[in-house]
């Protein structure tokens, strides 16, 4: 028998893909898992646009270019909390014990979960943009730039999901993962320029909004989708996403390996 004491990179990748496949099979068995990425984009887009539209931009149609990119970021990033919650739930089930005894890359269940969740971000992104379109949003930049903007949001949400995966690994219950994650994400998304322009806010708040990475991401998406312009905000967003991954991926992996 050919046995080895290590696993190569290609094996690790294959195991991770199989784990992602498993997550997708689970989604197919329990489609209610997708409720949040389906209803939230639809409800949020309708609700926020009609509540704030008149007050902020005079009317709904001139509010759309402002709100749709903002909601896109809010919705998709909020979705990434579920990665942590579901990881915790999954790690509590018996099947994880079997994964631990299998000759597979230790990291595969974690990597697979993060990978499969991009499907959720994709659904949320598509639905938010489609809702915007139905309500009359016509981004001035071409189709290509909107797709690019969507990909940027998905990549950022994936980066953020490492933070929540970290909580998922260290927390004791799924609901506490949800709790901690909300406490972090709420101020980040609401104290940003996602829903309203920051000019009317008090000065101290404007400072926070300005340095908030979510604001940079929102601005980058807006510029990309509305005017097709690529600027420093895009660079800052990508850099921010990279930093989050560089910090939280090793932290999460370490915490995970200790438990696995």
């Amino acid at each position: 028998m050919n046995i080895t004491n290590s696993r190569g990179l290609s094996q690790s990748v294959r195991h991770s893909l199989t784990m992602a496949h498993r997550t997708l099979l689970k989604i197919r068995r329990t489609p209610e898992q997708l409720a949040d990425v389906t209803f939230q984009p639809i409800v949020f887009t309708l609700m926020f646009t009609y509540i704030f539209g008149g007050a902020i931009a005079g009317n709904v149609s001139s509010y759309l270019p402002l709100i749709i990119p903002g909601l896109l970021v809010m919705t998709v990033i909020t979705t990434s909390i579920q990665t942590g919650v579901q990881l915790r739930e999954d790690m509590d089930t018996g099947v994880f014990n079997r994964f631990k005894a299998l000759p597979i890359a230790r990291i595969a269940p974690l990597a697979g979960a993060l990978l499969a969740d991009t499907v959720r971000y994709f659904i949320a992104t598509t639905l938010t943009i489609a809702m915007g379109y139905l309500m009359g949003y016509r981004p001035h930049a071409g189709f290509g730039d909107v797709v690019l903007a969507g990909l940027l949001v998905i990549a950022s949400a994936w980066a953020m999901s490492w933070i929540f995966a970290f909580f998922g690994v260290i927390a004791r219950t799924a609901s506490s993962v949800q709790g901690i994650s909300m406490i972090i994400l709420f101020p980040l998304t609401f104290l940003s320029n996602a829903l309203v322009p920051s000019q009317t806010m008090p000065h101290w708040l404007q400072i926070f909004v300005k340095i908030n990475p979510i604001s940079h991401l929102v601005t980058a998406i807006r510029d990309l989708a509305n005017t097709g312009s690529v600027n420093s905000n895009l660079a800052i967003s990508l850099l921010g996403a990279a930093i989050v991954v560089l910090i939280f991926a090793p932290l999460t992996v370490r915490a995970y390996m200790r438990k696995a």
Partner: protein
Amino acid sequence: MGTQTDLAVEAQGLVKIFGTNRAVNGVDLKVPKGAIYGVLGPNGAGKTTTIQMLATLLRPDGGSARVFGHDVVKEPHRVRQLIGVTGQYASVDETLSARENLFIFGRLLGLSRAQSRSRAQELLEEFDLSEAAKRPLKQFSGGMRRRLDLAASLISQPPLIFLDEPTTGLDPRTRAQMWNTIRHLVQTGSTVLLTTQYLDEADQLADRVAVIDRGQVVAEGTVDTLKSSIGSASLRLELADAADLDRALAIISGVLNTTAIERTPRGRLTVPLADAEQVADVLIGLRHAGIAITAMSVEKPTLDAVFLALTGHGANTEEVVLS
């Protein structure tokens, strides 16, 4: 490659401490290749903890263990390629179907898509799960889950299989099926290490047995040796007058050449019995001495009796059962 050895498992002085609880306290095991080896013990004895250390799921706090010559701490990845583990509690995916579970495990073990699919089909048929293959496990009965659990451990036909209480909670028919499956595994060349709380299960299956209690091996050997150490059955007597207890014991010891493994102040006695024919001798002896009895029964040895004999205290499980 690897060290040549005739042992599938060799553990020396294994220790696992949870807080202040020495759950496993210096366990030595030698499991020969091709054998069915039983680890027998009551609730909390340390069976699961021992298996988890051998299966690389828990890191020992002391001692060492080798699986086919590979150290479980230093070469866990090698060891994992040689073992299949069926834990005490279901370790399959509840939301997926039986087929999907086996498919995913097959893929993880390096089979191609087509191979995984056909292996899943083979195992489903072998374990009598074909009909329910497409349903999510949530709808499975305990016995079906247990069978799937075992099937999942056999995908790559590992040379060593750990089974933690494989038949606990199964009805007698399913239990007998499981026994056949386990015997079949060994016929096809695997080694099986199983834990059980039931002496009769060890009796039916195991070539050798280690009895563990409070984290230590208190007896090791073939089932026959183990049983003969406490007699092949036990005689239970209730005396009409508890004051006769000592006198009765003296007579019994004279006839059976053993001492009681249980005596109660109310006048109940349990003594090991090597041969059922000796019952008559005991009864005649008691009658001659004028000691009256109110009840008498002959029972097969129970795990409790083994424990009493080996450790001097009861197995303190409610489920200690006699075959």
